[in-house]
């Protein structure tokens, strides 16, 4: 069954708009800013060196030659010049190395981070755990991390299957998620915004579609978001959403997904309790709209070939109702 015509898929794909910024040259997080300074220094020094070498190369091959080729004095002079060049190399290299060590000091995970979030890599999405803090109980979400601006956030990086790599270049360098190990990464957004990142370690078929959004917002907004996320799913009111919920519980969906506050408690796929509040679905594949939800549910294997969500046969009415239900889970 091809529930969604290819035309719709391509419009859905083309319409997804949540790019955020994903560039090491547009840093908005403290570690990324440190690294960018290092990048600029090293690149400038290296460019100057390259230009100098090219200058010498050009002169060496094109200079006029009217003196006899070989005489012992020029051999001695060559030795002096080459030795001086090597000595200069040693000094520059030592300088760059020390600069690199200083930058390394600036990107470590502090012991007293304001917030610790566990990120678990899965083929091909991100499972995210917020621990309980104060009155807010812990909760789980997927593919979207919210952090308060201007605070140190410690990410604990784990993996349940293969190696992935967490990389949001505008905020920090990357760090691998290795099964059997736990790694750490410091995030600290200096200004509010949506920062896109994606898996950087080859992890199989859909490595290309494993994006993550980091939403940095003022502390108050963050607290509001966390409080909302920690609650159970809203009970649908609209008739199509109510029907959608019933279909969701009856079909295989509930075996893989959790919707807190309902009987759906599967753990294979992402927690859908507040899927409607997330900016994207399918790990940054498309923007969350009723249409994209429908396209995804109808035929996940065409949108993201090889992913672990099977195609569940649905009538077009069922599909519309489920999409409405999903969209309602704000």
């Amino acid at each position, binding site marked *: 069954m091809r529930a969604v015509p290819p035309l719709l898929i391509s419009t859905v794909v083309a319409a997804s708009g949540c790019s955020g910024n994903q560039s090491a040259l547009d840093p908005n997080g403290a570690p990324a800013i440190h690294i960018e300074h290092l990048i600029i220094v090293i690149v400038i020094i290296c460019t100057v060196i390259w230009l100098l070498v090219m200058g010498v190369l050009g002169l060496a091959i094109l200079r006029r030659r009217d003196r006899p080729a070989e005489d012992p004095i020029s051999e001695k002079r060559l030795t002096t010049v080459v030795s001086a060049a090597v000595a200069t190399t040693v000094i520059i290299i030592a300088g760059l190395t*020390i600069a690199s060590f200083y930058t390394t000091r600036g990107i470590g995970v502090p012991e007293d981070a304001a917030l610790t979030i566990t990120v678990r890599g899965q083929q091909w999405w991100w499972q995210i755990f917020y621990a309980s803090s104060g009155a807010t109980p812990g909760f789980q979400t997927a593919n979207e991390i919210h952090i308060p601006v201007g605070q140190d956030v410690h990410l604990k990086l784990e993996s349940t299957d293969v190696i992935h790599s967490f990389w949001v270049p505008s905020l920090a360098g990357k760090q691998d998620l290795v099964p059997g190990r736990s790694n750490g990464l410091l995030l600290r957004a200096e200004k509010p915004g949506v920062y896109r990142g994606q898996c950087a370690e080859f992890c199989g078929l859909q490595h290309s579609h494993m994006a993550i959004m980091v939403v940095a917002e003022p502390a108050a907004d963050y607290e509001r978001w966390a409080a909302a996320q920690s609650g159970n799913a809203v009970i649908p009111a609209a008739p199509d959403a109510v029907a959608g919920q019933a279909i969701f519980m009856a079909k295989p969906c509930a075996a893989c997904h959790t919707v807190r506050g309902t009987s759906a408690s599967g753990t294979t796929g992402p927690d859908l309790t507040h899927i409607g509040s997330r900016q994207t679905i399918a790990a940054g594949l498309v923007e969350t709209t009723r249409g994209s939800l429908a396209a995804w549910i109808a035929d996940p294997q065409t949108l993201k070939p090889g992913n672990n969500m099977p195609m569940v046969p649905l009538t077009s009415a069922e599909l519309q109702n489920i999409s409405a239900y999903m969209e309602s889970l704000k």
Partner: protein
Amino acid sequence: MSANRLRHTALVIPLLAWALSTQLGQITPYEDCQQDVPWTALASCFLLVVSIVGLAGSRATLTGLTRTERFLVNASFLIALAFVFALSLQGAATMLLDPCQR
């Protein structure tokens, strides 16, 4: 040990010191972090000193060598210098970085 033997063996020392230091760099930071003793820095400084001594020893005397021997001793002296440089950069790392940082 004859002077000739010394010249050759002394130059192997910086190389071995570097190899050992590189391996220790994979092992001792964990211990440093747990025990709060700068093992890595101590090992690195010790190996640096040893390799400089090796380097100096090889320069003790260069008389009485054939052309090929002189070539070998000079080449290995230059090679050993590269390893002393690498060791001193490693030493700088132990001074600047926190062994607990991951």
